[in-house]
């Protein structure tokens, strides 16, 4: 194939967005392409034969272009991608990239230079914008108070921001490439893995609360949101994980809970006096009787049994009081026997029941040993609040029913605790307010109005929920808690010796 090179030059120079000049050894313009002519507003015949400096805008003249062209022609050293800026009054700054190459003319006798100029202003500003956006995003991620972590679809960590470092003590270098699940406390790892398995299947963000094991060994509760990063074909490229440190929030909640517990304690103390004085009375009387029956071994033995039995009963009541009053760290969870919690709560508030109140248990269909994972005295506080509320809704007596049943789902099993009274119900328009702090239906200075709002937050912390149904025939509070299926109950390590 035989090219007509002149025609090839014209075709090429007309189709590329560059401005092209051919300049001879005397710096006179031999040729200009169409793009150059359009931009400079001239015609080929007008520019041919002019000095290159005459055809370029004055703003370019501060570049040693003459010298550069001469050097290229003389030494055949091409110049590549030099930058020149075009500043003119009233025109925004434009930046050009230019290259100069030597051309052989008429069989090596004459030499010339090819000057190719490209306006790269838009390109530059685009990349500057990209860089700025990247910097901005990076600083947003870095200065965020929340933990922002990204992983690949399998969970290997790609980025780890400053907040994540501050909270966990691990820096990016120590976490890069490791699996996110390694940083979650052991018992919840399976849940994290399940999250990763399911994250591609729905568009939805996943929310969870997982404890993170920090570098110095402690665990911190963090509320997490996981969102998939989808590729163009919808496949999951990675996962963005945003976490909020719950320690401060938990401390505040714990303070409110402790205050509410003390308030509840004040309420139950009167009832406790009765509960303790009964066995004390039995013990004391039986001991006095022993002195009168010193010669009667059978009677002595029976009295001794009564003394011991009474002391044990009083001490059991004190045990539940202490367990209830003792502040518990929020992440010290144990397996809590739900029936035991209900019995203990009922005992603590039984003094608030009006005479003529019947208590019925509906737990016959329950398998033995129904455990929830949680903090015993917080769950007790919830039950105390609910049972005390039920008793107070029935000032002239009535029926309290405590029902516990299991609710099986595909993935989990819930414990459903229903506490119902036969009181007059909650007035219309008040139902929506009952979980608000300081809301109360009673004029009683002993009641803080925090009972239900605190109960609500405690149950939420346990991964459950609390709902209410009311009618003029009575009110039922239903507490739903996830069931812990582990076989052997673990006891809290901090129990009294």
């Amino acid at each position, binding site marked *: 194939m035989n090219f007509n090179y002149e025609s090839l030059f014209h075709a090429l120079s007309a189709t590329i967005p560059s401005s092209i000049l051919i300049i001879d050894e005397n710096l006179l313009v031999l040729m200009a392409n169409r793009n150059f002519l359009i931009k400079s507003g001239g015609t080929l015949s007008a520019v041919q034969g002019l000095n290159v400096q005459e055809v370029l805008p004055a703003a370019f003249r501060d570049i040693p272009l003459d010298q550069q062209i001469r050097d290229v022609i003389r030494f055949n050293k091409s110049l590549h991608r030099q930058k020149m800026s075009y500043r003119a009054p009233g025109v925004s700054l434009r930046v050009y990239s230019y290259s100069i190459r030597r051309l052989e003319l008429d069989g090596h006798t004459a030499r010339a230079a090819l000057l190719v100029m490209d306006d790269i202003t838009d390109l530059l500003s685009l990349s500057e914008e990209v860089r700025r956006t990247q910097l901005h995003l990076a600083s947003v991620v870095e200065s965020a108070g929340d933990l922002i972590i990204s992983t690949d679809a399998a969970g290997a960590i790609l980025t780890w921001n400053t907040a994540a470092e501050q909270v966990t003590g691990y820096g990016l270098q120590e976490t890069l490439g490791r699996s996110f699940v390694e940083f979650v406390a052991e018992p919840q790892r399976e849940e994290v893995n399940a999250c990763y398995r399911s994250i591609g299947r729905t568009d939805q963000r996943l929310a969870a609360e997982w404890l993170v094991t920090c570098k110095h060994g402690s665990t911190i509760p963090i509320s997490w949101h996981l969102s998939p990063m989808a590729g163009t074909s919808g496949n999951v490229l990675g996962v963005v994980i945003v976490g909020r440190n719950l320690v401060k929030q938990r401390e505040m909640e714990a303070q409110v809970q402790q205050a509410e517990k003390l308030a509840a304690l004040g309420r139950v103390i009167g009832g406790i006096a*009765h509960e*303790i004085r009964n066995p004390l*009375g*039995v013990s004391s009387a039986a001991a006095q009787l022993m002195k009168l029956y010193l010669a009667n071994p059978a009677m002595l033995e029976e009295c001794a049994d009564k003394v011991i039995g009474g002391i044990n009963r009083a001490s059991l009541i004190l045990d539940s009081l202490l367990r209830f009053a003792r502040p518990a760290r929020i992440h010290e969870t144990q397996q809590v026997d739900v029936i035991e919690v209900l019995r203990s709560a009922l005992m603590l508030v039984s003094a608030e029941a009006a005479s003529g109140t019947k208590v019925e248990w509906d737990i016959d269909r329950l398998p033995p040993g129904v455990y929830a994972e949680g903090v015993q005295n917080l769950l007790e506080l919830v039950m105390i609040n609910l049972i005390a509320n039920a008793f107070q809704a029935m000032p002239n007596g009535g029926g309290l029913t405590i029902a516990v049943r299991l609710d099986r789902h595909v993935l989990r099993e819930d414990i459903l605790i229903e506490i119902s009274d036969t009181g007059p119900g909650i007035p219309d328009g008040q139902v929506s307010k009952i979980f608000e702090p300081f809301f109360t239906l009673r004029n009683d200075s002993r009641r803080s109005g925090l009972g239900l709002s605190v109960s609500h937050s405690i149950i939420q912390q346990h991964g459950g929920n609390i709902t209410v149904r009311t009618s003029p025939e009575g009110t039922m509070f239903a507490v739903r808690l996830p069931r812990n299926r582990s076989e052997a109950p673990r006891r809290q390590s901090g129990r009294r010796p």
Partner: protein
Amino acid sequence: MLAQAAELRAALVVDDDAEMCWVLKVALELAQRSVTVAQTGRQALALVTERSFPIAFVDARLPDMNGLQLATEMIRIDQAMRIILISGYYSADDQSIVEAMTRRQVHGFLAKPFEISTIIAAARADD
């Protein structure tokens, strides 16, 4: 008149705590009383309707009514009855107890824990 003498020496104990009933029964038997035990207010009222008890020891908190209510109802049935209220909840200087004593709704008050001798003395007071 033997039968009537036996009736005079009867005592009623009303308390839902079985252990408490046991010690009261033993103590009252030391005071030569034949003791009948009721665990609820309703049971006690049924017993008082059937026969006469010169003295009753009544717990202030019963599962179906409070002790003061029961005292009022029992005296309505048998005006001659003397009622001693026993409580682990109230103390002798509580307003409701002072008022109940003044109104002769109850005739004595014992706070738990109590002295056996006080029970015996209360039982013998009308011998």
